[in-house]
């Protein structure tokens, strides 16, 4: 009986209880002085701190509360959205007295789940020339430790199609949240396109080229240091071993020191937002750490994005150079789902190149996108040939559908690319 009546009261509370009723809250006559979001060991004033933990759109909405009368109903909505954005266990809000009489401060407390498990699809796409590519992974997070196990079959990124397992351990707080550690283990089985095997006949290698391989394993520990707010530095090593196919099956090792310098800066104006990303990656393999190969792979990347209302303008420039003899997985590729879209990478260079430049300009308006790609891929001994492509498509969040046309003489061969997170 007691529980029956409690159930009745609860049902009514769900129907009528509501959450915050502004008209009933006596504090709705006070003015909001500040809005603060705090979490485990961090705190950000939305008006003064340019903290990137909270998305710019949500931060703008929270800043809009400042100077207005307190609206408790809107706090519930913002707390709900923060909870979704942080995948938090709870987001609770408190209102405190402000520094001046009749002013109040709003504080959102974000409580993350100490242990959580997520399944995600980091990459999934279909290219009408090159087929399917997909990856799925599960991540268990315990405090600052993340354990990830995933399956991948990628025919897009490299000359080869690699299929196998990728496992990762990440610690995002080695004594400080400015130091991170990551250990990656990958084991793949390779498939080669006929054009690639034809371009590199059995047993034939050169000063720049290695042979084909059947399987490949990689062990890669890496530390990342947040040098300054927009700048991070990663250092690590990569221990790769792979079983070459010809002339006789044997295992080769390509051990390299790795370094990456990344810069990210966001500048927000009244009605626009600019994002600048720049990066430099170096992989240096040397016999000093037991490598059968000695080479250096340098890659530069610059990306600029301007967002104004529904319009987005994006420019991304990439360049790379390899010196020495590197395995095929290190060689650069153009003509996939992100570079020289519309071109077939096997037509451009079935073995990849050790020199590469590429630029992509993209304009988006709402879900509509149009792009222009240009680039060249070549080997040290060859001359560079600049190629271009254009395309249009639809993009909504992480999902994209595009048709791309390589600009070349003769017939037009459109290529369809659809997928997510690429």
């Amino acid at each position, binding site marked *: 009986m007691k529980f029956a009546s409690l159930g009745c009261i609860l049902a009514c509370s769900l129907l009528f209880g509501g959450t915050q009723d502004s008209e*009933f809250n006596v504090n709705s006559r006070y003015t909001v002085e500040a809005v603060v979001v705090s979490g485990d060991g961090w705190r950000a004033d939305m008006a003064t701190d340019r903290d990137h933990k909270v998305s710019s759109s949500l931060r703008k909405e929270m800043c809009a509360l400042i100077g207005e009368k307190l609206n408790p109903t809107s706090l519930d909505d913002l707390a709900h959205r923060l909870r979704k954005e942080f995948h938090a266990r709870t987001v609770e809000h408190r209102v405190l007295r402000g520094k001046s009489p009749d002013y109040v401060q709003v504080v959102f407390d974000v409580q993350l789940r100490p242990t959580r498990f997520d399944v995600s699809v980091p990459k999934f796409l279909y290219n009408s020339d090159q087929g399917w590519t997909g990856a799925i992974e599960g991540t268990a997070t315990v405090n600052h430790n993340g354990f990830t196990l995933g399956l991948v079959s990628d025919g897009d990124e490299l000359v080869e199609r690699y299929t196998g397992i990728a496992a990762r351990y990440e610690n995002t707080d080695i004594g400080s949240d400015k130091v991170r550690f990551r250990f990656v283990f990958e084991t793949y089985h390779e498939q080669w396109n006929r054009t690639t095997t034809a371009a590199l006949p059995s047993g034939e290698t050169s000063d720049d080229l290695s042979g084909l391989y059947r399987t490949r394993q990689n062990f890669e520990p890496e530390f990342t240091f947040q040098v300054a707010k927009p700048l991070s530095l990663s250092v690590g090593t990569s221990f790769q071993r792979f079983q070459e196919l010809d002339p006789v099956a044997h295992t080769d090792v390509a051990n390299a020191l790795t370094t990456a310098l990344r810069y990210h800066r966001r500048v927000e104006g009244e009605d626009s937002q600019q994002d600048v990303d720049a990066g430099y990656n170096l992989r240096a393999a040397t016999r000093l750490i037991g490598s059968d190969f000695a080479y250096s792979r340098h890659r530069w990347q610059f990306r600029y994005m301007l967002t104004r209302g529904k319009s987005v303008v994006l420019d991304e420039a990439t360049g790379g150079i390899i010196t020495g003899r590197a395995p095929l997985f290190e060689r650069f590729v153009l003509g996939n789902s992100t570079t020289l879209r519309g071109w077939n990478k096997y037509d451009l260079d079935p073995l990849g190149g050790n020199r590469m430049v590429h630029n992509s300009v993209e304009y988006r308006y709402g879900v509509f996108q149009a792009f222009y790609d240009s680039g060249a891929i070549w080997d040290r001994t060859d001359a560079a040939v600049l190629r271009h492509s254009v395309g249009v498509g639809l993009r909504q969040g992480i999902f994209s559908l595009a048709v791309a046309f390589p600009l070349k003489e003769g017939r037009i061969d459109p290529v369809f690319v659809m997928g997510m997170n690429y």
Partner: protein
Amino acid sequence: MAGLAIPLLRLQADEGLTVSFDGDNLHFSAPGLHFLTGKPLTRLKDADTVTFLSQITLFSDNQGTIFRRGLPERLVVSYDLWEERFKVTIPGASRSRSNLTAVEAEAWAIENLAISALGLAPDRPFWMRFELRAASPKEMSRVMGDSGISLSGLVEILSRKPGVDDPYWMRSAGPLRLSDLPRTVARRGRIG
């Protein structure tokens, strides 16, 4: 179910309700009942609005036979951060009072609750029960999840026994007779 109700009624009878009659409705006070305490008070001091759901039930015997059950009434309470005083609103009765201390707010809220005495014979004995529950915003958010109504959340809440974390109060009185009750002036129009 009725068997369960008897000991509950007897158990709570000592804490009691002081019942009065205004000619149409039954009113009561609950001395010693303090609901602006604990978690609801913490939420109020965070400037949250706390909604309490009250329900009054009349029984025609001490076996738990319901004579009348009033519609749940909302008591909406907020706490002024700068004045440090409470405001209580009873939307169903269109009544509101502010600038109250905690004790004043509790007393005013309960004084303004009532149930119709229509159909009660003056000499017929009856029993009364008053229940009060704080509606938790977490319960709301658990049930109203990101992807719509969460059935597991609803089941979890309904199957949970009220405990320390679930602010719930109950007071009972009886047997009572209308003819024995002290008369008061009408504070609300006729209910029901």
